[in-house]
């Protein structure tokens, strides 16, 4: 039975805050930064209104916020936080610590350029630079998906015991108002069981965490982390399916738009996929066999699914709103590696589009597609604005 819940006009930030509130985390260590700040503000409002009973910690830095997230999570409670850009960078050391701790923290990151120079614009490099920290990463496209994904992230993270990031772009999502279906607390309750880990920091259990290990144990630890990541595909898929069953909204780990028979595929993460959809519609109307593949789960990277989808296509056009100096677009790199050795692999074109928050219009996307149709693919990503 599908429950509609309420419908509200919400920004991405507030939608994420609703998602978090509905998950009822017990501890929320949080530090403000534009453009994430409204999440924190909304959550404290919820607390005041009695919609949320959580311990808020407002420490002196994101570093301490993440430290408290980890320890609170290891003490056996659900933990939520949010950050962006500089804040995420400051947390870096502890992001590793969190995954090594197998602490299923859920964190929203509003993608923002980082200094220097200063800016506040949409750019995914901040979170993509954390791709090796052992966190799940969901890239979402709009406020509704933000709300839904926060809840799915909790369910998945707490099942596999890994922390999860829900990522959306500054302003394009964080501050964009859209109509959002907000599920009822009952719906969420039936979806998300309480978090009850078997091992945690507790005098009644008496086990300690993090003591020095030898090389072999360390290696084993990393292997179980790998195993957990491997399980994410099924677990996240189920979580998405269940959510769809309850609310009618599901997204898949990757979302295919008009891909069925498409010879050419545009691939992107976040808001560019939304824009790309209109570009696809237009080009389809013009007779081009094209579809869009939105990568929603970037970590773990759904390699098998991508190989399945992309095998036999002619061309993939990757649009990266991020930039790894010296090796270009990060999704571009990842895709090349993912498809390596695939017999019927498509040609891969990588474009850096929207880096630094530059607006990417449907026309721009069309132009880049056309460029790829006439040209040779290059290993290097190409600045496409």
């Amino acid at each position, binding site marked *: 039975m599908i429950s509609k819940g309420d419908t509200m006009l919400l920004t991405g930030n507030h939608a994420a805050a609703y998602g978090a509130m509905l998950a009822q985390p017990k501890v929320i260590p949080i530090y403000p930064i534009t453009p994430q700040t409204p999440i924190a503000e909304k959550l404290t409002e919820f607390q005041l209104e009695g919609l949320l009973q959580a311990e808020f910690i407002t420490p002196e830095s994101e570093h301490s916020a993440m430290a408290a997230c980890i320890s609170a999570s290891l003490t056996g409670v659900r933990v939520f936080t949010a950050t962006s850009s500089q804040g995420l960078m400051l947390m870096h050391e502890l992001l590793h610590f969190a995954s*090594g701790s197998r602490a299923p923290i859920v964190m929203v990151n509003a993608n923002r350029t980082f200094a220097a120079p200063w800016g506040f614009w949409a750019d995914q490099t901040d979170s993509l630079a954390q791709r090796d920290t052992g966190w799940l990463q969901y890239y979402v496209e709009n406020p509704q998906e933000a709300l839904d994904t926060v809840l799915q992230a909790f369910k998945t993270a707490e099942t*596999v*015991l890994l922390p999860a990031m829900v990522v959306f772009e500054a302003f394009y999502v964080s501050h964009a108002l859209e109509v959002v279906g907000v599920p009822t607390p009952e719906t969420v309750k039936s979806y998300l069981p309480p978090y009850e880990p078997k091992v945690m920091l507790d005098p009644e259990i008496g*086990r300690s965490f*993090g003591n020095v290990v030898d090389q072999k*144990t360390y290696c084993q*630890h990393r292997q*179980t982390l790998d195993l957990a990541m491997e*399980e994410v595909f099924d677990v996240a898929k189920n979580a998405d399916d269940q959510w769809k069953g309850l609310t009618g909204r599901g997204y898949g780990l990757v979302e295919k738009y008009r891909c069925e028979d498409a010879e050419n595929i545009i691939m992107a993460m976040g808001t560019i996929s939304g824009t790309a959809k209109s570009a696809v519609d237009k080009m389809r109307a013009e007779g081009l066999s094209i579809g869009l593949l939105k990568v929603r789960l970037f970590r773990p990277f759904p390699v098998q699914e991508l190989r399945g989808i992309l095998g036999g296509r002619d061309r993939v056009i990757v649009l990266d709103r991020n930039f790894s100096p010296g090796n270009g677009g990060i999704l571009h790199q990842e895709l090349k590696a993912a498809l390596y050795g695939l017999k019927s692999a498509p040609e891969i074109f990588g474009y850096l589009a929207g880096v630094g928050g530059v607006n990417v219009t449907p026309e721009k996307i069309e132009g880049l597609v056309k460029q790829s149709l006439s040209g040779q693919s290059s290993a290097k990503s190409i600045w496409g604005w």
Partner: protein
Amino acid sequence: MSKAANMLSTAWTTLRSDALNTGTWRSAIPTYRYCPSPCHQACPVNNDIPAWIDGIEKGELHGAWLKLAVNNPFPSITGRVCHHPCESYCNRGQYDEKISIRMLERYLGDLSLERGWSFPAVDVAKKERVAIIGGGPAGLSAAYHLRLEGYTVEIYEARQKLGGLLRYGIPAYRLPKEVLDREIDRLLELGIEVHTDVAINTPGEYDRLQKEYDALFISTGAQRSRKLAQFEDSSGIIQDGLDYLYKVNSGQAPGLGQKVLVIGGGNTAIDTARSAKRLGADQVMIIYRRTEEEMPSQKSEILEAGEEGILFTFLASPVRIEKENGVQKLVCQKMQLGENDSSGRPRPEPIKDAYLSFEADSMIMALGSDIVMPKIGNGLEIQDSVLKVDGKQETSIKNVFAGGDLTSNIRFVSTAMGAGKKAAQQMAQLFGGNTVQGSSDLETVSFEEINTFYFPRNPAVVSGSFQLVVSDRIKNFEEVQLGISEEQAIGEATRCFNCGFCTVCDNCYYFCPDMAIARNSGEDGPNYTVLDQYCKGCGLCVRECPRGAIVLKEESK
């Protein structure tokens, strides 16, 4: 939960470190040891001083007295008159002031009399019998230790009462007769037969005793007063000090007139002078051929005599008596100190033609005494003018032991008692039962081994501050020195380092960073063991033992 989540995370602990063995790191291990304190080692009866002082500190007074009584049946006596060599060696002396051990001993002794405590009953009976000839401190001490071991003991004493010089030498103002009587009575309660007014003087009598008993202990003291050659035939004019004190102590003291001269520098001289003063002499003067420094009597007594108005003339040696118009005068030659003699003291040398003379109603010689050789067998030897015994107090005659003033020129109550104890110990060994606690030749705990942090500096309970006022004291033979209160006793006991004696203070237990010392509750109170598996041999426990009761011993692996 997923499979990976169900797998025990490798970063959580599952075991406890106490399963590990850090003992392998070690090259030395702390060892609890018995280490004698210097006071114990210096005490002629090997009193276990730190042990019973610990008892006082803990308020376990009866237990403390029992521990004291193991070696010393007469703490009320020695607590008053012992020359206390223990105190001279006290480690605390190197820190602030030595412990007033003797005062504490007296405190416990007096308490035991006040509370009527008895010695533990003798619960064994052994067949051997020992005769003791002479009931002074040496004989009584031997009797005590033998009796405690279950032997039959009989004492033969020439005088009417037991005690020797304790009774007939030392006056009541230093050792009240009641104290003496009560400590001796308690001793006799152990079941000792006493034959008073029986002097063993003839070879026949000794013969009989040798036949009747399994062993003899002869402790007849040194009864013969020394005389000066120049006064050999002045017996009408010059009295003998020991004889005078005997009379004083028997309540038959003769009048001495107003001016009394006492010649000598030992206990007898001082006690004679102080007794004469108490019995009405107006002017009492001690004449000594050396200086105050060399006087063999205890310093405190010289001090007290001075307080009581006794006059001293040093560096003077009597040469003759002159009589003029019915007035007697003692003429003395002036002396000066020369090289040290065999006693280690500077030799007094006459100054030519320098004389002093003093008027006197009475003159008393107190020059010490010599032994009377017991008439037993014919093999006994004399050495340094005393009866020769070996290191075990045994004479050259089998099963005949001797001790006290008879065999030693070091003449003190406790030394005599120590000799009695040693003889008892040897006899017990002879009879095959040796359990009398002996002394050891272990090295003593040095001051450097004491952790003084645990002992805040504070002054001793000074005995001198508890004396009667002088004007009262010279009127009678009341005891001069008063005892101390329980509070003072505990205060003083608290100052004691208890060198080398584990007081179960728990410090070693508390200071181990590796929890490698176990505190066990043993039969005679708590004790400790070092846990071999964990001890890393750091030595902190040793360092933090306030009293050197543990040492670090190298281990060879």
